[in-house]
């Protein structure tokens, strides 16, 4: 029999071993993660207390110069009352972290290429690409420049960072970090001014990273110049009558001194314009291979993005006041890209609108004097260069008559689980090289080139938007935008004095080009790769005085839904511009000339306008082509679209039929044609081109075997597919059965996302809600994922503006809190919140919570 002490030793050993094995196993297994998440004191349950609006929270903050009161109105909008701007922006940082901390962190990781640290190898491709782009390098350079040249703005960024970091500390101490930190098992690093500038840079990047010159070069190689220029014209076919700036393009008395229509007709892929001989098969093949490699790194085919903004003068307003409307179309996510706030700092600042979590200033909004909104100008601010490499030294390239050394930057990407990936980014005088295989292609982007065009990456949009927040009149607004470098935007403006304006600030790079006639002109942007040996480098930017702008036009309105900026005689030829072909421009011009005067309600209804201008242009021709040929269910479908008012409303069948019919027609026109030329990716021309071909070249090779037959076949196929999916009873078909919005959480986790919601709108309409023009999505649903990320209408009464706004989401990032998604229903139903704009906390009346930060 075993002795007592020996038995004890056996028990001791067994229990100890089991304990160690159990603990070791737990720490490295999903069960361990479950235990960590379920920890009642510090796990996910405690995260339900994150991001709440407190009834009253009082805290002493060292470093504040006075008490800051943050009062939450009934809609969850915080109103910050501080005595100094530093205190006010501290409070903005505090609020952003209080409500949106994980969003801020994941965004800076996305921008700086550090996602893999928390997500593993799945995000390595993004990280490698973002390290090549180098936004963090440019953000660091910008902050260093600000410290010296704009110390006052830098101090505000520092104050903002302190606000963020104080909340991080508090959340860590109370185990109330947001859910996603716990699910991903990490904690946030301290926030810095570089992170704020980084996110601003990323937003700029996402709005201007037009890869079209790469894609168009590829198309030129595969399709030849004629077809490429016909299908992807220099300027859109139907846009000249609805330019952002009224008039023919003359500015400050200057006009281009070469016939602009001659310029549009030129082949800008020619060697005279690019330094590249596309007609040499060896060159073309090598370039095609290099572009394919580059596109693999980018993995982001050309796409259309857009936004709407417009303003009406007092002469066109029922109430005799200027009004401004804006709805930027961005990716719609949970939480929203925007956070609404009112910031009052003594007498120097009193501004309301939306901020980007991570950036302290109001990006779109109003103060007591002015209101402003933004849309993208779509003008190309990125060029691609083919670099000639020294055969004896792969780290040297040929530039302006000499071999130059590339700058080589080592980037170490840490990967969750312990690994790391080391890459070397090779940078020429133009910028970083994208591809590691084939002929090196570098790119130069204004956000990296910087306002000095020295490649230093210093840009000043933080200074500009800060000054816009404080501007008291049009002159101060214009002066502030002098510093807006990137992304180039249509700043729509209305003020309480009755002025309206649109200014397109930004760095617009200029090349010098010698035309085939021998004349030399300055050109903005490009449609093609450019030879990197020096002749096609940027020679500067358009002077600020000459950037497109219009003030108080005679017609009494301005509109800038991403359409062509200027008329043909603008003094600089804008070659690389990825303008919206004009459907939204045509429609808003029609709306704004539909009656003599308008109300705020009209502004809102235009934001909800679902009229499809392309459908109105194309359908009569398509119907006419098949009218006499169809019967039965096809006739029934045709009758529905014949009586349609061209509104893409979710409860109607006609938009669904139009979408299916036109999708299949496009596919039949271009798919085989592109495949025959070796193009596998879908670079279909835009709809204005298709309509132009239908109207002007309907016997061309894209309509095989004939225009009538291809339109007829498309209709039959569309109706058959819809009937198979939704049944034979056409009256029961609804656009909203296919066209649904899904507001995906930034983590991509479905339980944190919202939708799908059947939705009005479409790709080419003011109520923007694009889904692919691809009939296959009947079987593999694709949701609308972009659209009006913020709707604002500002009515600029002389005694103080009234601001209406809404975005699809909610102020808090806490998914189990009512303020996580409380604006979605309003947004879906085109309702607005009147943004309270009190001068004192007491004026607010009905409040739901308060944070008091006392100087400590």
């Amino acid at each position, binding site marked *: 029999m075993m002795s007592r*002490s020996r038995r*004890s*030793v056996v*028990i*001791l050993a067994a*229990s*100890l071993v*089991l*304990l160690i094995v*159990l*603990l070791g196993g*737990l*720490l490295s297994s999903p*069960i*361990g993660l*479950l*235990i*960590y*998440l*379920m*920890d*009642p*004191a*510090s*796990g*996910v*349950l*405690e*995260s*339900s*207390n994150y991001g709440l609006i407190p009834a009253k929270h009082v805290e002493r903050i060292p470093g504040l110069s006075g008490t800051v009161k943050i009062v939450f109105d009934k809609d969850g909008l915080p109103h910050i009352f501080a005595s100094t701007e530093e205190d006010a922006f501290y409070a903005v940082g505090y609020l952003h972290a209080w409500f949106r901390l994980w969003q801020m962190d994941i965004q800076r990781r996305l921008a700086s290429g550090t996602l893999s640290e928390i997500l593993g190898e799945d995000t390595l491709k993004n990280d490698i690409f973002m390290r090549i782009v180098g936004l963090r390098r440019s953000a660091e350079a910008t902050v260093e420049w600000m410290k010296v040249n704009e110390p006052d703005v830098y101090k505000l960024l520092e104050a903002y960072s302190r606000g963020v970091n104080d909340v991080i500390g508090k959340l860590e101490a109370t*185990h109330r970090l947001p*859910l996603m930190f716990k*699910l991903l098992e990490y904690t946030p690093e301290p926030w810095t001014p570089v992170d704020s500038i980084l996110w601003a840079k990323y937003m700029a990047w996402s709005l201007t990273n037009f890869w079209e010159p790469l894609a168009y070069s590829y198309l030129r190689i595969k399709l030849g110049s004629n077809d490429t220029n016909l299908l992807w014209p220099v300027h859109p076919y139907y846009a000249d009558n609805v330019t952002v700036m009224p008039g023919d393009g003359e500015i400050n008395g200057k006009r281009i001194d070469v016939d602009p229509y001659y310029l549009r007709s030129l082949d800008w892929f020619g060697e005279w314009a690019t330094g590249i001989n596309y007609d040499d098969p060896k060159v073309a093949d090598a370039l095609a291979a290099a572009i394919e490699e580059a596109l693999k790194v980018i993995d982001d085919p050309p796409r259309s993005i857009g936004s709407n903004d417009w303003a009406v003068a007092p002469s066109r307003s029922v109430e005799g006041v200027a009004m401004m409307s804006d709805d930027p179309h961005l990716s719609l996510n949970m939480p929203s890209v925007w956070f609404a706030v009112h910031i009052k700092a003594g007498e120097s600042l009193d501004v309301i609108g939306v901020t980007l979590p991570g950036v302290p200033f109001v990006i779109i909004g109003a103060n007591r004097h002015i209101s402003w909104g933004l849309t993208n100008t779509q003008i190309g601010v990125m060029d691609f260069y083919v670099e000639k490499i020294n055969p004896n030294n792969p780290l040297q390239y040929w530039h302006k008559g000499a071999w130059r050394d590339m700058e080589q930057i080592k980037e170490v990407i840490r990967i969750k689980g312990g690994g790391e990936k080391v890459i070397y980014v090779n940078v020429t005088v133009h910028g970083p090289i994208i591809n590691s295989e084939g002929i090196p292609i570098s790119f130069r982007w204004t956000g990296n080139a910087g306002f000095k065009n020295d490649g230093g990456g210093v840009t000043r949009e933080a200074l500009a938007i800060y000054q816009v927040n404080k501007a008291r009149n049009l002159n101060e607004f214009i002066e502030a935008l002098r510093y807006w470098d990137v992304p180039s935007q249509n700043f729509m403006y209305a003020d309480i004095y009755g002025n309206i304006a649109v200014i397109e600030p930004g760095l617009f790079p200029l090349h010098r080009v010698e035309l085939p006639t021998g004349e030399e002109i300055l050109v903005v942007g490009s449609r093609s790769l450019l030879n990197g040996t020096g002749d096609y480098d940027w020679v500067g930017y358009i002077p600020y005085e000459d950037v497109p702008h219009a003030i108080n036009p005679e017609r009494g309105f301005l509109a800038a839904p991403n359409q062509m900026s200027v008329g043909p005689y603008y003094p600089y030829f804008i070659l690389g511009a990825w303008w919206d072909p004009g459907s939204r421009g045509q429609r808003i011009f029609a709306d704004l000339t539909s009656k003599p005067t308008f109300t705020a309600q009209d502004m809102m209804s235009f934001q909800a306008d679902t009229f499809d201008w392309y459908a109105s242009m194309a359908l009569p021709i398509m119907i006419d082509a098949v009218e006499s040929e169809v019967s039965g269910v096809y006739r029934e479908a045709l009758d529905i679209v014949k009586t349609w008012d061209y509104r893409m409303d979710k409860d109607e069948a006609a938009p669904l039929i139009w979408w299916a019919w036109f999708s299949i027609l496009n596919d039949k026109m271009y798919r085989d044609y592109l495949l025959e030329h070796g193009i596998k990716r879908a670079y279909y021309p835009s709809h204005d081109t298709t309509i132009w071909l239908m109207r002007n070249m309907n016997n061309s090779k894209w309509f095989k075997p004939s225009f009538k037959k291809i339109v007829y076949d498309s209709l039959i196929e569309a109706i058959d597919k819809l009937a198979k999916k939704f049944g034979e009873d056409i009256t029961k078909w609804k656009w909203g059965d296919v066209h649904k919005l899904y507001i995906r959480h930034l983590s991509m*986790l479905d*339980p*944190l996302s919202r939708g799908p919601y059947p939705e009005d709108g479409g790709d080419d309409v003011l109520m923007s809600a694009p889904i692919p023009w691809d009939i296959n999505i009947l079987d593999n649903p694709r949701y609308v994922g972009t659209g009006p990320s913020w709707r604002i209408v500002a009515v600029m009464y002389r005694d103080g503006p009234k601001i209406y706004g809404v975005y699809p989401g909610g102020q808090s990032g806490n*998914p*189990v*809190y009512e303020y996580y998604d409380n604006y979605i229903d309003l947004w879906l139903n085109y309702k607005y919140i009147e943004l309270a704009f009190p001068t004192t906390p007491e004026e607010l009346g009905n409040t739901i919570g308060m944070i008091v930060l006392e100087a400590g």
Partner: protein
Amino acid sequence: MKIYKNNWYALLAGILGGIALDYLGLGILLAAVVSGVLVGLFTTKLRYTLALSTLSGILWPAILMAFQLANSMSMEMLSLVSEIAGFPPMAMLGITIIIIVVVSMLSAITTHVLAGLTLPKEP
């Protein structure tokens, strides 16, 4: 050093120790280990060690969870996480408590036996 053994004290120490240490941020597993150590130190016999460490390992996380889940938003958070994990909420809570119990029990046994072997007995 002499340990004044008392099974009631053992149970109380196990529960309070678990709650306090978890609340202070040591993490649930470490709190379970220390809670078990406390039970093991104070129990008089191995069978009480087994029983009381099990009881304590159930009670202290259950008390903390009950307080937490009294808040309806925590309940919603539990449902949400359960949906993300694809696992029923009660199963997640149950597994957690079972693991705590096992860790606590093993730690208690180890401590109890080790103390029996190394520390002088009570008079």
